[in-house]
């Protein structure tokens, strides 16, 4: 198993009555709720946590892209990754990812990801989401019905740019470049491992299988709900005649570890409820603009989110519900181990994106939970896939002689007050 410590970077100062006063945490959230001076501290706290996760022995540290979003402070995850590249040297840096349909031209992503791979010594995991409709359509203005087509074209350009050793002309429908000539190019060959975060569409599964990319199901609603979806994926894998390496799939899970189950509730309930009640308060039409999902998917899907009644449910969630329905995995190290084993085996996943920081959780609790997990849970889940012990197809292949820039800053021992103002 590979464990990646992931931080969504939520804004921790949403008011108690956020839900009553505002219709959405995303797209049209009042930006007066953001305080840049507090933001300075928040960024550094979150970055410190990601660096700390490396010292705890996590395989990867992860970030993602959201725009105009109260639970995401990373409109540019590449900036976060760049700062991590300078302060870590062992963990994979998982950028899950860049919503490539929104980049004009997409060669920018090929360049920045190549920079990150080079700066980190070959530690980049490159994510290519279609992008949520909130991000790609409402914040970045892409036409919903053409988003997937534009995504396909952007993917084609990026992969060709990485593969090609000569300048080429790219005559796309959305992007025309006479001279594509990626400089720099990534260390990892033929390219960094590629992860495709997706929902449940067959098109996405086939896309992952066509290119042998990792399929990442990033849900906040836990493994019981994720089961039928990943079952569908594995059926598709079998049907396509591919091997069933669990490393083909990743899953995101909110995890809270304490000395006991009761202690977990005492320490973490408030923060998890902040996340579910406030951070996930999204105005439903932002999540499903006409054309974003294919008609087949729309016809197949449930529509309960559109009713007035449904919009009341999240606000009344309790800790008991979160735990019992396994939206989150929380409790003593033993409880967490048991449930995670069920999650990992049930979904057949080789990569777990672990969400330890939730909502407005303070730094010390985040570290406490992460440390308990790293010491008491992670070692016991390491070898769940003995048949695929040496399967590194979906993981980084860094340079052996890479630098450790975090240890080499001259004058780092100087005290703060000694620096000229």
């Amino acid at each position, binding site marked *: 198993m590979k464990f990646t410590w992931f931080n969504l970077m939520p804004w921790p100062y949403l008011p108690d009555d956020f839900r009553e006063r505002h219709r959405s945490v995303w797209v049209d959230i009042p930006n007066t709720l953001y305080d840049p001076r507090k933001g300075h501290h928040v960024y550094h706290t979150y970055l410190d946590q990601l660096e700390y996760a490396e010292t705890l022995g996590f395989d990867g540290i992860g970030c993602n892209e959201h725009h105009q979003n109260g639970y995401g402070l990373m409109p540019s995850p590449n900036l976060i990754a760049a700062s991590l590249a300078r302060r870590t040297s062992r963990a994979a840096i998982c950028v899950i990812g860049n919503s490539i349909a929104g980049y004009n031209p997409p060669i920018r992503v090929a360049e920045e990801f190549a920079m990150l791979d080079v700066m980190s010594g070959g530690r980049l995991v490159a994510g290519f989401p279609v992008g949520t409709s909130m991000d790609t*359509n409402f914040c970045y203005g892409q036409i*919903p019905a*053409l988003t997937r087509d534009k995504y396909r074209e952007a993917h084609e350009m990026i992969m060709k740019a990485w593969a090609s050793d000569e300048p080429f002309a790219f005559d796309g429908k959305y992007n025309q470049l006479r001279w594509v000539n990626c400089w720099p190019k990534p260390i990892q060959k033929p390219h960094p491992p590629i992860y495709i975060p997706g929902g449940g569409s067959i098109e996405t599964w086939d896309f992952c299988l066509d290119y042998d990319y990792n399929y990442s199901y990033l849900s906040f609603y836990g493994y019981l709900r994720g089961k039928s979806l990943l079952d569908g994926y594995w059926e598709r894998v079998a049907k396509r005649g591919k091997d069933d390496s669990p490393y083909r799939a990743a899953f995101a899970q909110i995890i809270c570890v304490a000395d006991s189950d009761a202690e977990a509730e005492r320490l973490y309930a408030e923060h998890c409820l902040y996340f579910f009640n406030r951070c996930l308060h999204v105005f439903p039409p932002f999540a499903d603009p*006409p*054309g974003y999902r294919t008609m087949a998917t729309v016809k197949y899907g449930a529509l309960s989110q559109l*009713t007035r009644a449904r919009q009341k449910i999240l606000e009344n969630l309790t800790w008991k519900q979160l735990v019992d329905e396994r939206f989150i995995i929380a409790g003593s190290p033993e409880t967490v181990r048991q449930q995670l084993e069920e999650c990992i085996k049930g979904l057949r996943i080789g990569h777990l994106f672990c969400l330890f920081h939730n909502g407005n959780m303070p730094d010390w609790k985040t570290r406490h939970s992460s440390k308990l997990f790293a010491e008491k849970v992670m070692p016991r889940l390491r070898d769940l896939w003995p048949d695929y012990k040496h399967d590194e197809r979906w993981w980084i292949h860094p340079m052996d002689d890479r630098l450790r820039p975090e240890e080499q800053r001259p004058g780092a021992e100087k005290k703060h007050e000694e620096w000229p103002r």
Partner: protein
Amino acid sequence: MKWRMIDTKKGTRCRVLEGGSGTPVVFFHGAGGLLVDNPFLDGLAQRHHVFAPEWPGYGDSTGDELLEDMLDFALHGWDLVDALGLSRPHVIGHSMGGMIAAEMACLAPRDLARLVLVGPAGVWLEERPIPDIFAMLPHELADVLFVDPARGAALLTGGADLSDMEALKDFYIVTQRRLAMAGKILFPIPNRRLSKRLYRLAAETLVLWGAADRLIPPEYAAQWKALIPNARVQTIEGAGHMLPWERPDAFVDAVAKFLA
């Protein structure tokens, strides 16, 4: 009036509501499509030979994937006129249909007789941003479309009750398909730079507006008048954005006088 299917050279297959006799009039519907009942078309058909094609993505019309941008839509409009075998018809366009009709008239100014634009989309005034129809709950649409939202909701859904899950789903699927198509020229802002081409418009033009239009407010009428060389504006009381359905008699009356 009767439905029939026509094929365009490009490969779309479109359903057309046709009726009446006299000089030909083509009516292009807006993003919401034709509704179950369209009495204003019956009214027009008393005096004209009326053709009301549905865009791909609407009703039984297919070929959604063949139209991707403004030029595709405008040329498709002319392809329909050709497929119907019409020569210099009067053209009426409502909302998105008005945007397309105006674009058609700029492309081929001598190929139509008179032009009626009813609450057309396609122009954007920074000081009067148009509400985002792509970010609305199903039950919110009627509020911006009709002067009387309760009556409007019944017109939109053909009387279905949106608190019933099955009815909601049916309505949602149809609406999603239509607006997915409309989004190609209306999302995120319904402005494909038509303003800079409107100087080409040669047809005599009537700009009709519902006085209580909450989607594209009547202030826009003045902007259209300023941009089109030969236009007059008429505002109709007691109607919102869905003017032809809200005040069919007043609509038919205004159009008939203009085309006479």
